[in-house]
């Protein structure tokens, strides 16, 4: 029987197998940021261990960084200390580090791909659940905890129990207003937050093939939201085109060899998946989350669900609690809900294509009065490219704030936060209670819906403008 893509990558990285122990996998790339690494570096020092492969390790600062006045010292003393700790650790252990203000700095999952560090067939880990993003290149990429960060630093390997495989096939074609974000939100709506637990998910089918690399990253990024260990997509010509000429991509003769290896990275026709999900692209209209987990999702043009209609008791109770927290009334049209803040950013939707698609909606229009709007590019590279294309001017002319790169309001560890009861349309990936600031109310949407919402002042698709 043939093998699935993830099984092929897995098998290529086995350092040791058998004897009742989980497989020991070699890790090709370890990305590090300031939040989940300090205790790991401490652990190394306590045990007098070294970083085995500083050359396969890269660090950057993203979660805590302010997105304004970055030439000034960071005001929050605790954030500052965390960032300084990472800088000192990178220096002590000889790790390449991109600090705030460096042209390559940015959200860890945005910079890996754009520097060509993420390549097909690799294993990639980071102390961050959205490491699944890198699966868009046909890499096996997953988030790990701090103990595992220490393990990878010390050994460049990780013991991993075998996972099930899951195929998520999106057939047909998307409606014109829909995007990659709507695809993954629709998948979440279909399988729920626990639907991928214990599995590595492979996205496939014509809709996925038609997506750009940026779109594929958006889809893989949110695999963790349905609990999958990783999400991945087989590499194709688009993948190779994206990688060609990137700073860390192979060159010359190596390039030819690499491409011929990469072409082997696909699921064999006779391979079997443990679980299968099929959705129709035609049904995937623009989506929005109404509740406090990313599986609570409906079409933007839909009405807010009524908990009384949930058959399952636990789901009904969860829906009641969510509507109360979100301050929403059942059975009202979603487009009647006004917003206070629109956030365009995060490792889900802060790449150049996301900014282009939002700018296209905004161009020549004005943000509705009284709405706070932020555009936070994912990296220094994205910011620079957007400025070359004049996107920053489009945003600024419409009334948006144009910021410096970082995670920003995706998780509000920096000064960009929601206040209690403040409602946001956000292109990020988590609508958990308090995620964007204590008491804040988050609705996840695509960049185009976020842009249209900023103009309309309430939830809207570009077609509604």
């Amino acid at each position, binding site marked *: 029987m043939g093998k699935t893509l993830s099984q092929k990558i897995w098998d290529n990285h086995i*350092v*040791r197998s058998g004897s*009742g*122990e*989980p497989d*020991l996998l*070699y890790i*090709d*790339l370890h990305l590090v940021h300031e*939040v*989940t690494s*300090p*205790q790991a570096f*401490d652990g190394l020092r306590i045990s007098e261990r070294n970083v*085995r492969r500083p*050359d396969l*390790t890269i660090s950057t600062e993203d*979660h*805590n960084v302010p997105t304004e006045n970055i030439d000034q010292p960071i005001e*929050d003393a605790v954030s500052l*200390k*965390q960032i300084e*700790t990472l800088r000192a650790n990178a220096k002590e252990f000889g790790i*390449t580090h991109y600090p705030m203000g460096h042209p390559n700095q940015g959200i860890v999952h945005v910079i890996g791909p754009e520097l060509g560090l993420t*390549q097909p067939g690799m294993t990639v880990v980071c102390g961050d659940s959205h490491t699944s993003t890198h699966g868009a290149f046909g890499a096996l990429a997953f988030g*790990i*905890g*701090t*103990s*595992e960060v*220490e*393990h990878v630093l*010390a*050994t*460049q*390997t990780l*013991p991993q*129990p075998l996972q099930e495989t899951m195929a998520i096939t999106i057939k047909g074609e998307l409606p014109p207003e829909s995007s990659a974000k709507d695809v993954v939100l629709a998948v979440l709506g279909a399988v729920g*937050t*626990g639907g991928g*637990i214990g599995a590595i998910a492979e996205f496939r089918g014509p809709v996925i093939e038609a997506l750009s690399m940026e779109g594929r990253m958006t889809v893989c990024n949110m695999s*963790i939201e349905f*609990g999958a260990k990783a999400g991945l997509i087989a590499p194709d010509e688009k993948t190779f085109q994206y990688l060609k000429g990137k700073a*860390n*991509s192979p060159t010359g003769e*190596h390039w030819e*060899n*690499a491409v011929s290896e990469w072409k082997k990275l696909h699921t064999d026709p006779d391979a079997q998946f443990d679980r299968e999900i099929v959705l129709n692209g035609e049904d995937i209209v623009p989506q929005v989350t109404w509740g*406090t*987990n990313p599986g609570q999702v409906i079409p933007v043009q839909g009405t807010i669900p009524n908990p009384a209609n949930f058959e399952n008791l636990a789901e009904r109770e*969860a829906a009641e*609690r969510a509507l109360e927290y979100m301050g929403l009334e059942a059975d009202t049209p979603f487009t009647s809900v006004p917003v206070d803040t629109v956030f365009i950013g995060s490792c889900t939707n802060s790449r150049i294509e996301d900014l282009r698609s939002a700018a296209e909606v905004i161009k020549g229009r004005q943000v509705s009065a009284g709405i706070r709007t932020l555009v936070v590019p994912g990296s220094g590279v994205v910011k620079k490219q957007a400025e070359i294309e004049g996107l920053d001017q489009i945003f600024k002319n419409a009334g948006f704030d144009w910021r410096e790169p970082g995670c920003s309001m995706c*998780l*509000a*560890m920096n000064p960009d936060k929601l206040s209690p009861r403040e409602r946001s349309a956000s292109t990020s990936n*988590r609508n*958990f*209670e*308090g*995620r964007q600031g204590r008491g804040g109310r988050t609705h996840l949407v695509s960049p185009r819906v976020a842009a249209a919402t900023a103009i309309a002042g309430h939830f809207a698709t570009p077609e509604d403008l």
Partner: protein
Amino acid sequence: MEPVHIIQGTAVPLDRSDVDTDQIIPSDWLKRVERTGFEKGLFSEWKDNPEFVLNDEAYSGASILIAGPNFGTGSSREHAVWAIQQAGFKAVISPRFGPIFKNNSTKNGLVPVEVETEIGKRLLGEVERQPLLEFVIDVERALVEIPEIDIEFSFPIDKSIQERLLNGLDDIGITLGDETSISEFEKTRLAWLPSQD
């Protein structure tokens, strides 16, 4: 890590599904560079509500947390495990765990006990009625016993994880025992793979 054999104590019922790690420890707490001092951050936003079950005196001193399905989903923050442990818990019972949380738990000696949905519901109800119900979780036999109400059930646990818990083994030490295999593997890596040298 300290070895864990038997956990004996009372439990607190957190009757919610989808308790994500942002709720277990909100992001403000993640700025600390130390590994201790997270107990105050545990459910810090929910704790402001006097009705919140962890504020209920009847459950003080509990060493087991029982929750609804999908406990510990979301962010990879190991701080969630540290906060739960530092607040005195030694095991969490739920029908389903977020995979990274589950992994992080066992690396720190916090025992994740996966139960059938029906049993999970029943346990929540029992503990709501009788806060002083004594649980025994036996890691070696992978068994939970509540003698007073005559409940006994086994839970799934990976052999290698069980061994690490029982012996308090350090994963890194075990892997470094395989240094030669790692070096051998490194010789076979493809020439073009990215490296910062």
